[in-house]
């Protein structure tokens, strides 16, 4: 049980920061999200999206996904880092992923209409689909891929801080089933969600801390009020718990741990995003203040893959498998 980074892990994260910089405030944040193709290309060239091919572990991939999640710019990294290694090498990123369960639900939280697959998958906006080269469709026991062409995706405006797109139904005809275990892909999808929330939540908390230390009311910083301090202390506990659950799940490879980490992350997101905006005052409602760049990623991820209820329920089935527990 070692919580310190190894020398190699420290070097990896230092190399990441050398490219991304350290938490600089974006010059312009009035757009719903910030894309940075030049940064993305640098990360790609440095091999940060293909760590597994360079011998790095899942834990290291999660560390980098958390690091990229902290950035104010929006980069598709967690899916490439965690799910990419399971896919054929020819698959190109950015990668979008959608979960299609037997109940007819998809990871995009729109009320569960059943019906044709096209109706299920091709009517709902999918995170990162706009600009993606690959769509991963994760069903209960099957994984399929669509190699995307520009005409496959209709861009979609959104209040969330990610690029979203809607799939054109015809694209589904080109979906190819691949020989990838769905349960392992789902485990990694959950790690990706947990890692991305951890990174964004950490950065959002840090930005809010700066605000409450600077902003004064009643003659003192608002961060000096105990009512504010206690909720920020709880927020910090949640973020640190989220980080360590995610890292442990990545290192150990246990599917229940990954479900618990994703569920924890998605659940904490509700209170965390509310509180961080609350403590930022009306400034937190503006687009010139960067908090939304992280919180509206977190809010989008809250419902990913069915949301916290789905991950928590799955963690119970995985931690106490029905056949084993009965009769014990």
């Amino acid at each position, binding site marked *: 049980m070692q919580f310190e980074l190894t020398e190699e892990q420290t070097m990896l994260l230092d190399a990441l920061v050398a490219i991304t910089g350290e938490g600089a405030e974006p010059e312009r944040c009035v757009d719903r999200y910030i894309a940075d193709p030049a940064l993305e290309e640098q990360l790609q060239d440095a091999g940060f999206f293909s760590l597994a091919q360079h011998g790095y572990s899942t834990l290291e991939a999660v560390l980098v996904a958390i690091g990229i999640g902290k950035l104010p710019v929006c980069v598709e990294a967690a899916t490439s880092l965690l799910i990419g290694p399971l896919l054929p090498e020819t698959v190109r990123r950015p990668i979008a992923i959608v979960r299609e369960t037997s109940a007819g639900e998809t990871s995009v939280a729109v009320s569960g209409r059943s019906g044709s697959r096209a109706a299920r998958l091709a009517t709902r906006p999918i995170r990162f689909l706009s600009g993606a080269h690959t769509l991963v469709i994760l069903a209960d026991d099957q994984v399929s891929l669509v190699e995307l062409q520009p005409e496959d995706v209709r861009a979609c405006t959104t209040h969330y801080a990610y690029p979203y797109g809607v799939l054109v139904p015809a694209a589904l005809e080109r979906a190819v089933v691949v020989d990838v275990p769905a349960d392992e892909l789902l485990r990694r999808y959950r790690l990706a969600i947990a890692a991305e929330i951890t990174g964004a939540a950490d950065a959002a908390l840090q930005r809010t801390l700066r605000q409450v230390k600077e902003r004064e009311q009643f003659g003192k910083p608002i*961060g000096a009020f105990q009512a504010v301090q206690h909720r920020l*202390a709880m927020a910090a506990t949640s973020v640190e718990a989220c980080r360590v659950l995610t890292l442990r799940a990545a*290192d150990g490879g246990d599917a229940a741990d990954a479900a618990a980490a994703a569920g924890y992350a998605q659940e904490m997101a509700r209170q965390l995003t509310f509180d961080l905006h609350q403590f930022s005052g009306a400034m937190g409602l503006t687009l010139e203040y960067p908090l939304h760049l992280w919180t509206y990623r977190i809010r989008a991820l809250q419902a990913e893959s069915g949301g916290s209820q789905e991950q928590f329920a799955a963690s119970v089935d995985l931690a106490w498998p029905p056949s084993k527990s009965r009769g014990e």
Partner: protein
Amino acid sequence: MDFSWTPEHLALRDSVRTVLAETLPADWDRIAREGPGSAEQTAFSREFCPKLAARGLLVPHWPVEFGGRGASTWEHFIIGEELWAAGEPRGPQYMNVNWIGPTLMRYGSPAQQQEHLPRIAAGTVIWCQGFSEPNAGSDLASLRTRAERVDGGYLINGSKIWTSYAAEAEYCFLLARTSADRKGGIAIFLVPMNSPGIKVQQIPALIGEGDIHEVFFHDVFVAEPQRLGGEGQGWDIITHALANERIGIPRYAFARRALDTAIGLLRDRGELDSIAVKARAGQALAAVEAARMLVYGVVDQRAKRGADRGQGSLARWAVVSAERAVCEFVLDFVPDGLHEGAPPLLLAHHMRAIAAGLASGAAEVQLDLIARMFLELPRERARAV
């Protein structure tokens, strides 16, 4: 970063589990229901701890000269985690081995060490800690119990409250005031509980038998050699002694067992199929594992002699949250868990969980410490220090 256990740590866990399997009686869950301070569990600890001692599992983390083998922080922690998960068959003696013994090693006179350490290491003595008072709870330094100098020693007058294990204890690790100086006027006394003038009264409560008492001191004579350290040294000693105790008891481990029990019961009843129940169970599971991992992080930091910048307080808050999540899951979905006939572990956990945010200090104080140490937020106002 590596979250796996070493083969040595796994073997140690196994050896503790073997002792438990060989030693705990069939009705152990019933005995352990009231918690470490009950008369029955305390009596059991006097049999159990010598067996642990014989196998080198009671004080292995103590230095060799005091009967240990200098085992690592992690080894000490693993033993404590397994025993707490099992319902704490060491009874109140967990406290002796965790901090009372080590504090005596550091600050005690050779005579004090000789008198107390062998008995603690043998597992045959019970201690209580005389800290809180009616007007000194979270604000411990405002304690008023007086130690007045008399010929050959001190006369103690005052009262303590919430004192765990007092009815069964042979000694009290007592904080008392020798002068008005808020922190500099506090001294520590190692007081035999059979001293004339001590009266112990159990407080009927929602938590386990033996958990809380009032202890009254009326002209209790304590000889000078029973003072630990110097007269003004009490606060420094206690701060040092408890610095490593902030994460305290590995409460999440018992919460996990209560959750395991509740899940097993619900599954047997066919009541674990709905997503609403499973989602809440999963939420409690994640809270327990979050607490476990944050505590492990603190243990790792302690093992490496790293400085605590508030991580201990984060872990403590996570532990309280985990206790609450399991407690509420049981109340919501296994409401009969508190009735007669239910597995005793469920009520046992309930009684521990409702005290989690208060035992060893109100958890809100930990939130203050997180704000100050971890988040580096400014103080609300200047406090009297």
